[in-house]
């Protein structure tokens, strides 16, 4: 059982990294588009998991940060500023500037109020972008120029490979984080906040940091999404997307490092597969989600946890 998990990690990562080779060999660029989109959401799910899985913060508004990242690319390229690194920097900077106040306000509440406040802010930002008609408003806009990275601009292979590298980096980062003091305090706060505060460690700065970090990762995902599709619209910020992100994290395994990737891949591949079978795919997708929630308390990845680890686990939300 112990060897199964590293083996599976290697297998999944291996397949994902093999995709560009398969695409090159069969000249099927669409494979890159399809899996690129899956990786974008996998990255966003990894980000959300920091707040949701490890921090216990149920945010129904994280799609807003994906949107901010995507629109950073869109708006800058409309004004002719196409430098790729600039896009990335602005995406992260703007998201940080938004996430800090939003997180601070939201963390003053708990439980369902927290969920609703994050939803409210996401709706606010959504409506702001809907009203920005010079950037397409509700209809969105096609990007004239993608992020400029020299000769690699718009190259789907380069995009996929760099996205994979970013995911690998974030995985390593989360792994370090979770086992560090920061991670320990965060996870402890999720279990019993009062006790942590009683011990003299103020919980809010840790939770806020986790929230902002998760938002930044989502922004990077948005940056990649804009470059992948060449299109941005407010639809990427809708609460339905936020809901789907949470499903992906839960499906994979809340509070596990690798789980969100499994969750995103499984969810999106299932969606694509069902779409090929029937037009009425939500009829199957819906109950599937219900069954996962009811029976797989620790997600798909959790199926592979041995009992010692489940005892230490965070449980399925609160």
């Amino acid at each position, binding site marked *: 059982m112990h060897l199964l998990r590293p083996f599976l990690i290697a297998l999944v990562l291996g397949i994902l990294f093999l995709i560009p080779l398969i695409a090159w060999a069969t000249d099927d660029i669409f494979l890159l588009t*399809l899996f690129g989109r899956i990786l974008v959401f996998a990255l966003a799910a990894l980000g959300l998991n920091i707040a949701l899985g490890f921090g216990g913060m149920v945010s129904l508004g994280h799609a807003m940060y994906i949107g901010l990242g995507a629109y950073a690319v869109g708006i800058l390229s409309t004004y002719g500023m196409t430098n790729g690194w600039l896009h990335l920097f602005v995406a992260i900077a703007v998201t940080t500037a938004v996430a800090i106040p939003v997180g601070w306000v939201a963390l003053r509440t708990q439980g369902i109020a927290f969920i609703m406040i994050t939803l409210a802010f996401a709706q606010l930002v959504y409506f702001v972008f*809907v009203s920005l008609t010079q950037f397409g408003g*509700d*209809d969105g806009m096609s990007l004239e120029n993608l992020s400029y990275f020299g000769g690699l601009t718009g190259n789907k292979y380069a995009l996929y490979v760099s996205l994979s590298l970013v995911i690998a980096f974030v995985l390593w980062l989360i792994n370090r984080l979770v086992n560090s003091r920061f991670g320990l305090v965060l996870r402890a706060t999720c279990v019993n906040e009062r006790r942590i505060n009683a011990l003299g460690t103020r919980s809010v700065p840790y939770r806020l940091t986790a929230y902002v970090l998760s938002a930044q990762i989502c922004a990077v995902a948005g940056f990649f999404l804009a470059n992948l599709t060449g299109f941005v*619209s407010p639809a990427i910020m809708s609460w339905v997307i936020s809901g789907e992100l949470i499903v992906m994290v839960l499906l994979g395994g809340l509070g596990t490092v690798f789980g969100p990737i499994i969750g995103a891949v499984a969810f999106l591949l299932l969606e694509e597969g069902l779409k090929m079978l029937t*037009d009425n795919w939500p009829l199957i997708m819906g109950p599937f989600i219900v069954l996962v929630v009811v029976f797989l308390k620790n997600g798909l990845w959790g199926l592979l946890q041995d009992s010692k680890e489940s005892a230490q686990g965070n449980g399925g939300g609160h």
Partner: protein
Amino acid sequence: MKNQVRKYLGSAAIVASTLVGGTALADVKIGFIATTSGPAAALGQDMYDGFMLGIEQLKGKLGGVKVEVIKEDDQLKPDLGVQAVNKLIERDKVDIIAGVTFSNVMMAIAKPMADANIIFVGSNAGPAPLAGAQCNSQFFFTAWQNNQQAESVGKYATDTGYKNVYVMAPNYQAGKDAIAGFKSQFAGGIAGEVYTKVGQPDYSAEIAQLQAANPDAVYVFYPGGMGINFIKQFRQAGLLGKIPLMTVSTADGSTLPALKETAIGVISGTFWGPDFKNEVSKNFVAAFEKKYGRIPSQYAAQSYDSALLIDSALKKTGGNVSNKKAFADALRAAEFDSLRGNLKFSKNGFPIQDMFVFEVAKDEQGRVSLKTLTKTLSNHPDSFVGQCPL
């Protein structure tokens, strides 16, 4: 090296198939993108049904060549539309992309299609930028440019002598086009101009505002569910008999089944109605009703026409789609009988056609349908062709 190997294999395959199958031409692949799920699905479904009826009547062949239609649902999400287009171009390697219900999806997929140098035969969405600055010699639109319907109603309002009209639409590009188009042909004054939230269900507040402005008539653009909501509420406020209601895409074949008698008396501006007297139209309506058991909407008619158009172009090029310019020229020639009567294309691929207004009334069988009222514009081009650099 890899490319060379593939080329050899490819030509070998073609030679082999020619030897085996005679001079059979390869299937023409058409990717049909429409919104066939979600609340607006009725429009996309009508488009698809109309298109497939056209192909079926031509025995599965357009221009004598077998066609394979690959249907994609964009779920009214522009990013999914882009993904569908990518799949059709990159994986399915289609020759033509057709359909497209909503303008926001249309704008999103315009660039990937232009980059891929593909032929596009649209049968609904017709946003202004694609008629003007972003026009493309390989894009064709068999429905109308978004403003044309609005211009038809604007002209009707001028001819009827309204002095003061209250206009409303949802707050997105198509809504703004609908109002701009109306104003461009309407000589009177605007009593009020209101943009509501997209998808808003309740218009009681706006209807009260409207009454306060005391207009001669009201003009709205509310497609799908929004139109059903607005007309129901307008009638319940007792206004339907008192203040004339002019619309585009609000009371049409997709919403009338849900509105029934509540919409009687509403005016609608477009290019075609199910009571048109020409042979092609009568044949289409009869066949559609027989097969699908409902009166075809204009959306079905538009897509049916696009199938006829592709058929005429394929006939002209002898089934050859690889010479894109020749095929595009053949499409532009539009040498076929359209169910609307007159049809020519401008250089931007948009129609030059007659426009009419219709009234919601009962047909001879007592069903609620659209009745032709009057022709408003003859051989009318779209208003953005001047900005097209072609």
